[in-house]
C-alpha cells in the first residue's frame, strides 16, 4: 500500500504535542528508540549510539575539568545521563515539561546532568558548550523555519574548536519519510552552518542493521 503524505507538515506545536504523547509511552525506557525495532535491538541501538558519540567527542574525560555538553532534545535523558557518567557536565533540554521533570527526578546525585525545559531554537545559557549533540531530534522538526532556527541556535552555543553533532540521514535531497520525520539534505546543513563558522567534518552512519541515519559532524573554525 502506498501512503500519500499529508501535503501540509505539522507545525512545531503539533510536533511538540506528538512528542509529549510519545514520551508518556516511553517515560521509563530508553532515550532513543527505533520504532520499527525490537526491544533488545533498541537497547543495543542506544549503547551503539553512545559508542559513536564517544568516538566523536573523544575519550578524554577529566571530572575535575569536565567537557560541557548539551543534549538538545534529551527526551527521557538517557543520553544525557550516559554522557555525564563519563565525567562530563551535561545539560539536557526538551520542550516537554513532563520529561524534564522526570529527568530531574532521575538525575545523578553529583549534579553532572542538569535539565531545562526549552525548545532547541531558543535555548541561550550564559556559557558555551564544548559540544552540542542532538540525537534524532532535528529531523522531527517538520516546520522548516523552526528547523533552520534550531540548527542555527544550537550552532551559536558551540565554542571555538567545539563540535556540533546532529543526527539525520545523509541525503542529496530533502526527504519526507512520514508525517513526523523529515530529513534535510546534507547541503542544507553545510550551507547553513558554514555561515555560522562551521565546517562539515564527516557523516558517521549509525551502522545499525537497517537504519541508514547517522551523525553529521561539524566543527567551529571561526
Amino acid at each position: 500500500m502506498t501512503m500519500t503524505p499529508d501535503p501540509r507538515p505539522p507545525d512545531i506545536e503539533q510536533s511538540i504535542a506528538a512528542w509529549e504523547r510519545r514520551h508518556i509511552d516511553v517515560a521509563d525506557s530508553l532515550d532513543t528508540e527505533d520504532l520499527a525495532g525490537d526491544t533488545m535491538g533498541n537497547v543495543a541501538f542506544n549503547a551503539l549510539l553512545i559508542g559513536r558519540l564517544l568516538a566523536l567527542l573523544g575519550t578524554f574525560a577529566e571530572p575535575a575539568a569536565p567537557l560541557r555538553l548539551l543534549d538538545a532534545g534529551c527526551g527521557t535523558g538517557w543520553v544525557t545521563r550516559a554522557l555525564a557518567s563519563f565525567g562530563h557536565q551535561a545539560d539536557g533540554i526538551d520542550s516537554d515539561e513532563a520529561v524534564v521533570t522526570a529527568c530531574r527526578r532521575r538525575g545523578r546525585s553529583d549534579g553532572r546532568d542538569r535539565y531545562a525545559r526549552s525548545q532547541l531554537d531558543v535555548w541561550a545559557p550564559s556559557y558555551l558548550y564544548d559540544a552540542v549533540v542532538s540525537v534524532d531530534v532535528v529531523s522531527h522538526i517538520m516546520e522548516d523555519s523552526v528547523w533552520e532556527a534550531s540548527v542555527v541556535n544550537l550552532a551559536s552555543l558551540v565554542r571555538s574548536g567545539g563540535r556540533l553533532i546532529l543526527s539525520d540521514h545523509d541525503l542529496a535531497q530533502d526527504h519526507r519519510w512520514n508525517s513526523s520525520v523529515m530529513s534535510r539534505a546534507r547541503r542544507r546543513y553545510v550551507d547553513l552552518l558554514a555561515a555560522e563558522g562551521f565546517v562539515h567534518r564527516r557523516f558517521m552512519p549509525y551502522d545499525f542493521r537497517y537504519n541508514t541515519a547517522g551523525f553529521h559532524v561539524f566543527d567551529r573554525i571561526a
Partner: protein
Amino acid sequence: MLIRELIVRHVGPEGAVHARGVQVDWSQVPAGVQAHQDDNSDGGPVAGDLLVVSAPTGLGLREHLDIDLPVGATVLLLLEVELAELPVGRVLAALAMAKLQVVEACVVSDAPAPTVAVVATRTDDVVAPAPYLAHDLEPGSSQGPAVIRRLLGEHALEGLAQRARERALLAQAGDVEARFEAVSTELKQRQDVRAEYDILVEEHKVMTSDLALARAERDAERKRMGVIRSSRTFRVASRLARVSGLARGIVGRSGGGGKSS
C-alpha cells in the same frame, strides 16, 4: 590525559623529546622518537621538538622556562598543583617572558600528585589552540584571524558572564549555608529538648516503678490487715477493747479518777 598522550600529540613528526627535571617513562614514548633525559649535549630543543619540564608554581617558575627557545619548539609544562589552585597570572607571565603561547591545557591523569599540564609553543605569531575533542577526523583549517576574533569574543563575553554566574553561585551557596546553620541550630535545640524529655521519661519510669512498689506494699499491708481483722483473736481483742472503753466511760461519768476539764 596521560603524559604519553600529551607527548604524542605535541611532538613534531621529526621532533625529539627533551625531559628536564622530570623523569619520563621512555618506554611509553612511541618508538622512533628521539629522547633526551636532562641532557643538553645535543644543543637543546629545535623547531618541532617538545621540551617536557616540571616546574614549581611558586615565584621560581620563570627560571624553569628557557627564554631562548627556537620558534617552533613546544614546551609541555607540568605544574604540580590542584587545577582549582592554578596560579593563572604567574603561569601566563612566565610563558609570555619566554614568548610561549598556550595551545592546550589539561589535567594530567597519571601523575602521582595532582598535576596540570600546560602546552605552549614558541611563536612570534598567533596560533590557534590545539583541537581537544576527538581529532582524528578529516582535517580542516582552524587557523586564521576569524578563529582568533571568535576566541577573543568568547573570552570577553564568557569572562564577563562567568563573573556574574560565579557571584550568583556564591550567593546561592551562601543561602544554603545560612539555611544549613539555621537548621543545625534548630536541630540542636530540638536535641536539647529531646534530651530533657528523655530525662523526664526516665524519671517518670522510676516514679511509676516506685508507685507500683508502694501500691504493692499497700495492698500486701491491706491483705495482712484483712487477715488480722478476720482472726478470732482480733475479734476478741476488739470486743474487749470496746468493753474496756465502755467501762472507762462509766467510770469517768461517775467522777472517779478522771481529769476535770
